[in-house]
């Protein structure tokens, strides 16, 4: 029981962390809450469904197309919507409400185009899980954990070693000074949205394969992602990843005491505790909460 819950917690944590890392990358750099990250995730799953299950493309081509489209979709939101707000010097709260409106908008569009029923991608036949130290784990779940670990490593290298990553961190740290140094912040914002949305695309595909597709999946994942990000420190990507794994574990161990329907409530009680006593999160810096 213990190892099973541990494994389940890690898998849930890996998915939340994929959501949270993109979300918190965008928050750290652009300084606003991008709720519309949720529909980017959902759309990636639905694109895979469209290309693979409806149009019958090759599975791997469908996956690559879905991820590329998710990245473009994130970029398009930034260029077509958020940029307009930045030009007007809108406050972060206005951007938050705007992104919330975008979330509802795209969720309703998915509902109209694909319907409310649950969609199955059906690439992976129901595989019998293998036993691993007393816990049952399916091959796909192993893929989820490995894929997220690889992505986090790549993201870490990108942030620390490349020129783009350094520029991103510079903009996150101080926008004005980085502009003086010749960094085009708009260009960096575009890159941040592309990278964040690519990770979101991977998350959407993995969730689609693991749990099927629902129009509201983006919202529920987004909620978990931002809870993880707030717990870990909303402006810090490693913090967001750490917080998400913590959230996944606490939720799954929580079912020992409470019915599984209370998973969401557990997530929010943790969120509340953190907002109250440590609003900057585990790894966040204190001044970022203001």
């Amino acid at each position, binding site marked *: 029981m213990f190892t099973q819950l541990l494994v389940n917690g890690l898998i849930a944590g890996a998915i939340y962390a994929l959501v949270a890392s993109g979300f918190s990358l965008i928050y750290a750099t652009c300084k606003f809450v991008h709720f519309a990250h949720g529909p980017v995730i959902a759309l990636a799953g639905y694109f895979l469904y469209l290309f693979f299950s409806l149009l019958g493309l090759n599975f791997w081509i469908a996956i690559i197309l879905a991820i590329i489209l998710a990245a473009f979709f994130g970029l398009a939101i930034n260029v077509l919507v958020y940029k307009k707000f930045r030009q007007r010097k*809108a406050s972060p709260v206005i951007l*938050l409400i705007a992104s919330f409106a975008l979330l509802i908008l795209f969720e309703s569009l998915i509902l109209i185009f694909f319907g409310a029923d649950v969609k199955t991608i059906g690439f992976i036949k129901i595989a019998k899980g293998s036993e691993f130290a007393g816990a049952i784990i399916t091959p796909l779940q192993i893929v989820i954990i490995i894929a997220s670990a690889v992505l986090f490593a790549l993201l870490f290298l990108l942030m620390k070693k490349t020129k783009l990553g350094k520029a991103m961190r510079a903009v996150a740290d101080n926008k004005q000074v980085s502009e003086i140094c010749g960094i085009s912040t708009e260009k960096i914002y575009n890159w941040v949205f592309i990278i964040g949305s690519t990770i979101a695309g991977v998350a959407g595909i993995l969730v689609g394969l693991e749990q099927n597709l629902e129009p509201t999946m983006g919202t529920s994942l987004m909620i978990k992602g931002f809870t993880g990000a707030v717990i870990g420190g909303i402006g810090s990507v490693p913090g967001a990843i750490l917080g998400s794994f913590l959230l996944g574990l606490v939720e799954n161990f929580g079912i020992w005491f409470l019915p599984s329907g209370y998973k969401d409530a557990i997530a929010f009680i943790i969120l509340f505790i953190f907002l109250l006593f440590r609003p900057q999160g585990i790894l966040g810096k204190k001044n970022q*909460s203001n």
Partner: protein
Amino acid sequence: MIEAYFIHLLILVGIYAILAISLQLAVGFSGLLNLGHIAFYCIGAYTSALLALQGLPFWFCFLAAGFMAMVFGFLLSLPTNKLKGDYLALATLGFSFVVTAVALNWTGLTRGPLGLPGIPKPSFFGFSFANNFWFLILVLIIATASYLIIKRIIQSPFGKALEATRDDELATRVLGKNTLKLKSYSLAISAFFAGIAGSLYASYITFIDPSSFSLMQLIPVLCIVIIGGLASLKGTIIATVVLTLLPEPLRFIGFPSSVVGPMRQIIYSLLLLLILIYRPRGFFGKIELE
């Protein structure tokens, strides 16, 4: 037939008006971006419905709904008092998810997703409001009373202190006002009116389930408050009438009912985006969101 339809619409306008002016009190007049307003509406509806199903008289259920929501509003304000902007929005949104999760999972009390059917229509000392026309009169009386009370609150010294807190909290504290207390009272009063709106809704529709109080329901109310203009009661009332009636023609164009729901959400979210981009003060607003 057409008459019955208009009465139905006007009843909804009345209920939305109470909900919107109460949110206006928190967001516009006190500067508290409360994204959990639907949770108070939900608490009010469930309190009223559960008491009415026990056979208690309507006036009692109605007031109990308001007071129950008020207590929760006050309790929510205690931990979130010091939070600002993004963090307050996220915490109140989180509260809203906890309330929905409890309504879904505390099946012993709320019957979970099955909902509560057969909620009695209100009656006062033998006079029944089961007829929709009389119910409309009741809703209009309560909506007008709520409007006058909130207007009185805003014009009182207490209301002025609230606006001062919104504009400059530090300065207001320097003047010797306990701003934390002011904000708590504001949220509690706002929650009270959301609670009575919930009670009216439950006794009008006679059936409630957790999906009536999902995140989606927040969009029309938020849209009304922002499009009408922050800190303007007149704007809120006009926006309530216009925006509640606006999507109604969709029903006559001949869309299937599964499309009308998402279409309404699309209209509201698009309007919200447009107004935030081009006229962030709304039509009658006195201040901008910060």
